[in-house]
Structure formats: C-alpha cells, structure tokens
C-alpha cells in the first residue's frame, strides 16, 4: 500500500468532471427550465441537423461505451439496426437499476431526467425509431413521478410528439414501471417483461438488434449511456475523448458506498482510482481500513486493498481480474465478515434467479445452503471446494449473465479470503461482531466511553 509518486495532485477540481451531475445542486434541477439553462436540448438541435447515419458514426467515433456493465460501444449497437427493413424500430432504455451496490441511474433520473429524454430523441433519430420506452424498476416512485413530469414537459415543448423541432421526426415515449425482478435488468428478460410476460432471458441469436421488442429491431441501452449522448453532441466528440483513455474515453458516475467517510456520487473521467476517490473524500470512516470492495456491483469479482491503484476503466479493471461493471464501489472495512457478505449476496442471486436454466436455479440454491452452514459454524473444509465446484458449474454454463454474477463473489472471496472461510469452520462460528460494522457503531462507542 505504498503511495504512487504521481498521485501528488489529488485536488478534486482536477480529478472530477461533473457533466450529468453538474447542476444537481440547483433548485428544481429536474425541470425543463433548469435543463435548458444548462444548454439542454442543444445537442438535439445539432443531431437533427445531421443525417441519422452521421449521428451513429459520430457517437461511434466518440468512443462512448455502455455504462450498464458490459461496456459495449454504444454507436456500434445503434449501427447493428438494419435499415430500410420496413419494420418498426424500438429504443428501450434499461432503467431497471438493481445490481447490488449500483446507485447511479436512480439519482441521475431523480435530479436530471431531461438528459435521458434528450438522449432518447437523439438515439431514435439515429436508429429511425418512432417509439421509445423507459423501463424503470417499479420500486422507485419518486423517480417515476419526475419522469412522468419530465416527459409531459418535453411533449409540451415539442421535444417529443410529432415533427420534433420541425425535423419531421415523430417520437412517442412511454414510461413503463416494472414490478420487482432483478433479472429484468438483463436485456432480453427486460424485453420479455415489457411484452407483458415473466422476465426470463431469451436465447441469442437472434440478438435484439434483429429481433427484439415484438420481434422488431431494438436497441437496449442503459440510462447513463443514453444520457451521456446529448453532451457529446453539444460539446463535441473531441471534448469527450479528451477525458479518460484511448479505449475508455469520457466521463462517468462512480458511486462510493459503505464504510467510507463520504459516500455518494463522484462524476469523473474514466480511469480514476479508488485511492484518488478516497483521498479526496476523506477516506474510510475514521479509525478503520479498507478490507474488500467491488468495482462495479456484487457481480464483479471483489478487490482488496491491493487494488487501490487499479485505473477504474474497462481495460484497467479487466486486467486486474474483475470488471468495471456499473462502477458501484462498495467499500467494506475490517469489521465486515466476508463470509456474511458473500452469503447475503448469494441469497440475493438465489432469490432473483428466474428459474429458467438449471445451473443457476439449482446452483444458487445449493450455494446458499453451504454458505449458511459455514457462516453458522456447521461447515466442513470440503465445503470450500464444493463451493468452488458449484460456482464453476454455474459460471459460463447458465442461460444469462445472472449466473456468472452469482459465481463472481464466490470465486473472488475464496481467492482472497480463504483463511476467513476456514476460520469459520475450525472456530465453529463467525468471529465477527456485526454490531461493529453498523453505521452507528463508532458513535455508540463514543457515547458509552
């Protein structure tokens, strides 16, 4: 844990780059008026003056990559939509943010919903779509309210509806509330859900770009990806490329949570490190040290304090053995039992497994049984290999990425914290006191002192 010499300048003004979050501290930031005061819908004007193919090429050249986890280039996704096929095309925005630890799209939509709506209009112009959907997870009514309002404002101002800004583009936008199912964040399960079915993933191919919603060509993009497009159009791809790295250009929202002094949203160029984020924000909570963390939600293999200097971009995190995912930086200090954490995540995956494929449905169930036994001090040493074995039978062998996600915390925690598992087995129980991990634990100690 030596400090890298080049980290002398930790001034937040230089390291952070608020774009989407730039005016969240203003009154009524979610309204059309405030958005337009900050150049809102200027990117759209520019895009509408371009041909759809030119818009796709422009977004491709900007290097924007999907912010929902996989990092697929957004412009390329748009380019896959067949043109002149005579079928309706659809844009579906994935606002089903449910990955444990992930909390960027919800505050973004609460404070700045128009950035998404403007991005939707630009994307629909590009892929020649006249009907778009926002699939918002249902459990966030405050965000639903603001989306309802923002969409109404956009219709009234002529940014949605017929002949948008005189361009000839017609676009209808439907806000759709889900009903509670993590699996609907998987794009094909989301499409099934939007068609009024159980949210279960589809076999691919065909990919959604060919046969998506109602078997028509469909683009499914994450909220943050689409919301980033207006700024790229307005301020230029060169501006966007001036941030981040060659392969991971641009800005993004990092969500810091857990045992840190200042949890919250930090918008920065791709490639910032956790060390830089912690140094500027007061570090871990006083008197504690980082034990383990996730770079992008519970489905991304966990890191430890050895990884504080990993550049948080797609390549950097990948090279260190994990995935950038949703940039949900969940930080846990030394009071946290890693077995407890992994057990709870695994219970989540078992709960949310849609049941369609056997490796995930059965595998997550048995992982939970083994982990609960280990946590309760009833495990055996052979259970650790069994955990690895079951996770291996889920990983890469299940229908969709939910299964792979369930295997990640198992593999990575056994890799870095096998001794802690063994301690639960040999000591016949958990050596940690959960009360010490709570947000009020240290406050209580002070009061009692």
């Amino acid at each position: 844990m030596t400090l890298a010499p080049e980290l002398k300048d930790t001034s937040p003004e230089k390291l952070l780059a608020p774009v989407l979050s730039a005016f969240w501290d203003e009154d009524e930031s979610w309204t059309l008026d405030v958005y337009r005061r900050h150049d809102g819908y200027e990117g759209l004007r520019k895009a509408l003056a371009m041909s759809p193919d030119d818009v796709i090429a422009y977004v491709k050249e900007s290097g924007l990559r999907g912010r929902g986890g996989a990092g697929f280039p957004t412009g390329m996704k748009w380019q896959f939509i067949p043109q002149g096929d005579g079928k309706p095309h659809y844009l579906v925005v994935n606002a089903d943010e449910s990955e444990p630890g992930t909390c960027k799209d919800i505050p973004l939509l609460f404070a700045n919903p128009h950035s998404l709506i403007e991005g939707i209009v630009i994307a629909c112009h590009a892929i020649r779509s006249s009907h778009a959907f926002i699939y918002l997870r249902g459990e966030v009514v405050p965000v639903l309210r603001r989306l309802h309002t923002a969409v109404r404002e956009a219709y009234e101002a002529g940014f949605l509806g017929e002949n948008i800004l005189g361009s000839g583009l017609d676009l209808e936008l439907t806000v759709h509330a889900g009903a509670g199912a993590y699996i609907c964040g998987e794009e094909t399960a989301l499409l099934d859900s939007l068609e009024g079915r159980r949210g279960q993933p589809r076999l691919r191919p065909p990919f959604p770009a060919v046969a998506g919603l109602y078997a028509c060509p469909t683009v499914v993009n994450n909220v943050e990806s689409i919301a980033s497009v207006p700024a790229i159009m307005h301020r230029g791809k060169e501006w966007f490329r001036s941030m981040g790295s060659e392969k991971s250009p641009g800005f993004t929202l990092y969500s810091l949570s857990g045992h840190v002094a200042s949890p919250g949203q930090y918008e920065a160029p791709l490639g910032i490190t956790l060390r830089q984020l912690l140094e500027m924000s007061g570090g871990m909570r006083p008197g504690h040290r980082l034990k383990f963390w996730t770079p992008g939600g519970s489905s991304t293999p966990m890191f430890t304090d050895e990884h504080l200097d990993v550049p948080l971009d797609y390549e950097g995190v990948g090279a260190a053995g994990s995935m950038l995912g949703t940039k949900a930086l969940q930080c846990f200090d030394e009071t946290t039992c890693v077995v407890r954490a992994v057990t709870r995540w695994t219970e989540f995956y078992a709960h949310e497994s849609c049941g369609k494929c056997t490796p995930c449905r059965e595998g997550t169930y048995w992982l939970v049984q083994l982990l609960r036994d280990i946590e309760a001090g009833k495990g055996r040493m052979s259970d650790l290999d069994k955990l690895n074995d079951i996770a291996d039978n889920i990983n890469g062998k299940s229908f969709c990425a939910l299964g792979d996600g369930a295997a990640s915390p198992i593999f990575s925690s056994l890799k870095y914290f096998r001794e802690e598992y063994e301690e639960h087995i040999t000591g016949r129980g958990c050596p940690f006191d959960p009360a010490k991990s709570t947000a009020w634990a240290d406050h209580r100690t002070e009061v009692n002192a």
Partner: protein
Amino acid sequence: MTTSSSERGVSLGMPELPAPAYPDDVRARLETDAREIIARYPDSRSALLPLLHLVQSEEGHVTRTGMQFCADVLGLTTAEVTAVATFYTMYRRRPSGDYQVGVCTNTLCAVMGGDAIFEELQEHLGVGNGETTDDGKVTLEHIECNAACDFAPVVMVNWEFFDNQTPESAKRMVDDLRAGRPVSPTRGAPLCTFKETARILAGFPDEREGAVEATGSAGPASLVGLKLAKGEAPARVVHPRGEAPRDTAPHEPSPAEHLSSHDAPQDTAASDPSHPSPTTAREGEAAPRPSDPAGPTAEEGE
C-alpha cells in the same frame, strides 16, 4: 370425476370456481383506465404489468378477480396472467397494510445496520417478515437492493426513500404511521397509501400539489462529488438520525434468521381461499362455470 369422488367421500379437491367479477361501477371505471394504459403500447399484452398495478391499486393486492379482469381486457387466459402476477415481487398476493415498510437487507445495507433495523422493527411491531400489524397499517418486509447504497441503511415505505436510517428513527417512523401522523421520506413525496402508490405505478401521474418537487433536487450524498469538484469543503453527509440508538447487547443473528422470501412457495391469491377479494361477493355466490381450463389446479382447491 369430482362428483364421483365426493360421492365416495374421497377428497380429491374441487376445481376452483371462476373468480367473481368486480361490481359494475368498479369494472366500468377500471375499464376506462385500462383503455388508457393499453393505448400506450403497440401490443396490448405489454399493458399487463401496469394493469396488475392498477388492480392492486383497487384492492391493495392482486386478487383472482383482478387477474380475471386483466385476462378479460387483454384477451389472455387467467393462467397466463397468474404466471406473470406471481413472478414479480411487487404484486402482493394477500391483503396487507396501508404502508409497506421494506428494510433493505442486501449485503451493504445489512452490514451498515439494515439487519439490526429489521430485527428491531420485527420486535417493536410484533410481526415477522411479510406480516401486517393488527391495525392493518404496517406490513413489514425485508427487500433487496434499492439503488440507494450511498444512503445506507435504507428503508422504503410505499417505495419512497427513507435514507440513513437507524433502529430508533425507523421505530419512530412506524409509530407515526400507526398513529396517523403525517410522515415524509428523505427523498420522495409525503406518503400516500399503498393503493394510491400502486396507481402511480400503473402510469397515472401523482396529481398532489408539491409531490414532484418534494425533498428538492437531490439527496445530500448525490451532491458530495459535485461539491468537491466545485472546491467546496468535503461535506460529511448529515444523517437524519436523531439520538444514538439505545444501548442494547449486540445481536448476533444466525444465518438462518435471514430467510430469502423465495425460500418457500408463497400462496397466490388464487390458492388462498381464506383471503377472497374484498370488494366482491363471496366466491360461492358467483355463477359457476362448467369448466375453467385456466383455473387453478385441483391440488390447490383443497
């Protein structure tokens, strides 16, 4: 088959009769809403999730009557509707309270205190997971990650955010709810009932004055990075915690105490004859239909 088996005194289970319909005035009103919902989609079946929110807004949970209504307006079988209604956790399958209090017990919130909050609320209210207080006000449950980890530990009430909670603040909040005192979230609008919330989820905007504006542009944690970037001092998030939690012996929950809500099959409204639809007549009074191929299976009827 059923006749002969009952004649022999062998209970093989009667196929359940079709669900009773809504009263005419209710049905007419819901049909108007349903038409508006269906019109939003190129294909009517896409309206099923919002329609299930709509029938939940009528009765507080998804009843067999509600599912029959959805099937009727969409031209689906009740089996198709039931399959969807039982897949998603936000559809309740039995009568519940006016306020659904959901404590996040996914890893991060659990570690930060969600487990302790859930434990103390169960004790304080005298109910377990998924149960409702006797006064019908509060249904307590544990929920999964609700995308607010920077505000942990989080409690959701009727899907409005109560951030940075403690056992004390959560207990005060449920006491206020049960006493009928107005309760406001840290992010979101002053609470309305669960039924009113379900109507917003069906896609009908909240018309209450000030509901959209309530609690301002963004929560404190959402602004931490922005303030740093503007050169403002690192803002420690101010937690609305009130006094410190009372000093109790640390609870050490056994893993068995946290059971996933999917561990056991849940009753559906269809398989739960002790909780018929509250707005309709008793099932026996409905005109029997000779066969309902989409109806519940025989083993559920007994």
